[in-house]
């Protein structure tokens, strides 16, 4: 028995932290808001190997598992990496595309009108049949997080000319490079969950620093229980969400048939916990946080977007309920 990240995941996370500390600052996110494709950042992500994290080593990937994946996505969330990182890492195992940052994948989900990152993606795939969209039109709309590059997409799907997207499950497996039972949807959902906790941790760090520094009534405002206690409550939520993310990653890595249950559990609790953290942190900052000149909003707005992306908390809670019904528990 051991519950926690394996050493390789910890090493990956620490390495990624070093890369992102320089390559992805708040200024990088602001550039993405101003329509920069952030090619430099994405090249670094490619060089580091992050984009091929889940891709087999034979295809030039790192061949790591979902535990390393969530460790990396949490770290990426802390830095607020702009662009379709979770989607690209989750879907590259299914498509024979470059891992160097030149390929950025957006995913069109059934029933979701506006495709996140469609405005900046090099490829748009449909989630349900993995078909590549071609000859499409984009109608960009603005998200509260301007780095999201949402667009309504109209286009035809076609067999991915370069890839594996229309192979059957057996063919996937036989083709090599795709782990048995690998589910890109589950990965993207769980990666988003981990990213959300990274965003929450970043907002917490900004808030702790502010509460130590800001003085009112002659003392640091971090001495007031009226601020301390709500922050502690929010921390309880995020701290208890992380093991659920790990559990789901482990289930995916083991090909556990119940993995979907754990993934939905993870997305439900991280969506709620990260949202709550954003509220508490914004409130703790007072007017200071309520301006785009200060960085907090960059992480808060991504949180609000991702909390509803790849399934809302309510949707995933309903899926957990379905599993419980299936087990005759509910």
């Amino acid at each position: 028995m051991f519950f926690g990240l394996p050493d390789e995941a910890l090493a990956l996370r620490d390495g990624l932290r070093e890369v992102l500390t320089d390559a992805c600052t708040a200024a990088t996110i602001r550039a993405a808001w101003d329509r920069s494709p952030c090619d430099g950042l994405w090249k670094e992500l490619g060089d580091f190997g992050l984009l091929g994290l889940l891709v087999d080593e034979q295809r030039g990937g790192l061949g790591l598992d979902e535990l390393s994946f969530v460790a990396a996505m949490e770290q990426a969330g802390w830095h607020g990496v702009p662009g379709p990182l979770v989607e690209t890492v989750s879907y590259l195992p299914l498509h024979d595309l470059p891992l160097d940052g030149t390929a950025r994948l957006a995913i069109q989900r059934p029933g979701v009108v506006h495709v996140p990152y469609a405005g900046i993606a090099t490829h748009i795939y449909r989630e349900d049949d993995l078909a590549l969209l071609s000859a499409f039109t984009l109608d960009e709309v603005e998200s509260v997080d301007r780095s999201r590059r949402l667009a309504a997409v109209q286009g035809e799907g076609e067999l991915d000319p370069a890839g594996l997207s229309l192979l059957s499950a057996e063919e996937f497996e036989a083709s090599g490079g795709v782990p048995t039972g690998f589910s890109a949807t589950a990965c993207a959902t769980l990666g988003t969950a981990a990213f959300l906790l990274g965003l929450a941790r970043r907002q917490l760090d900004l808030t702790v620093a502010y509460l130590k520094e800001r003085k009112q009534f002659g003392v640091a405002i971090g001495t007031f229980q009226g601020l301390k206690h709500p922050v502690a409550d929010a921390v309880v939520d995020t701290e208890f969400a992380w093991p659920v993310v790990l559990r789901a990653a482990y289930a995916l890595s083991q090909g556990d048939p119940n993995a979907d249950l754990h993934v939905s559990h993870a997305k439900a609790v991280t969506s709620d916990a990260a949202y709550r953290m954003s509220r508490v942190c914004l409130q703790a900052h007072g007017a200071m946080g309520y301006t785009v000149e200060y960085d907090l909003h960059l992480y808060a707005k991504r949180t609000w977007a991702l909390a509803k992306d790849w399934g809302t908390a309510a949707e995933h809670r309903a899926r957990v309920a379905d599993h419980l019904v299936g087990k005759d528990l509910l």
Partner: protein
Amino acid sequence: MDLTESPAELAFRLEAREWLQANVPRGLPSGDTREGFAEHLLWERELFAARWAVVSWPEAYGGRAASVWEWLAFEEEYYRAGGPQRVTQNGIFLLAPTLFAFGSQEQQDALLPRMAAAQDLWCQGWSEPGSGSDLASLTSRADQVEGGWRLNGQKTWTTRGAFCTHLFGLFRSDPTSERHHGLTYFLVPLDAPGVTVRGFARLDGDEGFAEVFFDNVAVPDSAVLGGVGQGWSVAMATTGSERGLTLRSPGRYSATVSRLLALARERGALERLAPELTQAWMDAEAYRLFTLQQVSNEQAGRGRPGESSLNKLFWSELDIRLHELALDILGPDAELEGPWSKGFQFALSGPIYAGTNEVQKNIVAERLLGLPRR
């Protein structure tokens, strides 16, 4: 207890309803951008021309001498008709009550008609970089000189400051004073030499805030409102208005609930969220009823300390809950720029401005309940 409107009140309500239904503009941009603000001014002047800008004021200043019940009815009709935000609110709802209470006849005559007509546009200068919740720590100075005063210092978080023409604010007029002593309430034209205004963006990206710098700004003695050194008590009257009823009339939330229910119907969420939507309706109704009771209590001289803090705690949290529910209904569309996400971001400021909710809870605990201060 009598919740029937008199024939006069009903006639007033119906006249307001008719005019508003016919005249409320549709699709105005945000009034917290330079372009939007200009469009809103046209609407404000239209309101004034029809004598709907300041219904509770005396007729001489452009009002209708409406009772508070009539004012509440007007507000209800205004939001029911989909009326836009009032970009003049910091003047007509925050400064004006103070002017009525503390201003000289000359000040009232000079300032109120121009304020009502949206000719003078007032912003509030309370907060400073180092003084937020702890307003009494402010350091902007007023030094008495021959024929008046010299103002120095910096105000910030001034809502729509970049588009306004005048500022009301607190300055330390006694350099030896501490905390809430030795402050004076000044009325300052923003085109005075030495004033610099820098707009900056709020959470939603609109340039809704400003920093205002004062560098030896000369103002006459007539710029003082309510007496030298009396600034704190004069200002507290205004903050009571800000957090209480006059800034956030119940019609606003009833209208939000109506829009929310329409959204839920449109998106097929009525059944799934029936308990939450019902609670939303109940909460907005409770706010309306509470304000009716509050007005009645005040008219009967039974107002309680801390009552406007209760009021502010409730509406600020209600507004967030209503918008969270809308975002829940919208699901992945919640992040789209639009009225609901904008309303959500604005709602998030509710527990911060007009005295943070932490401060309001202290007020409830200490003044209403009598718990000890630190």
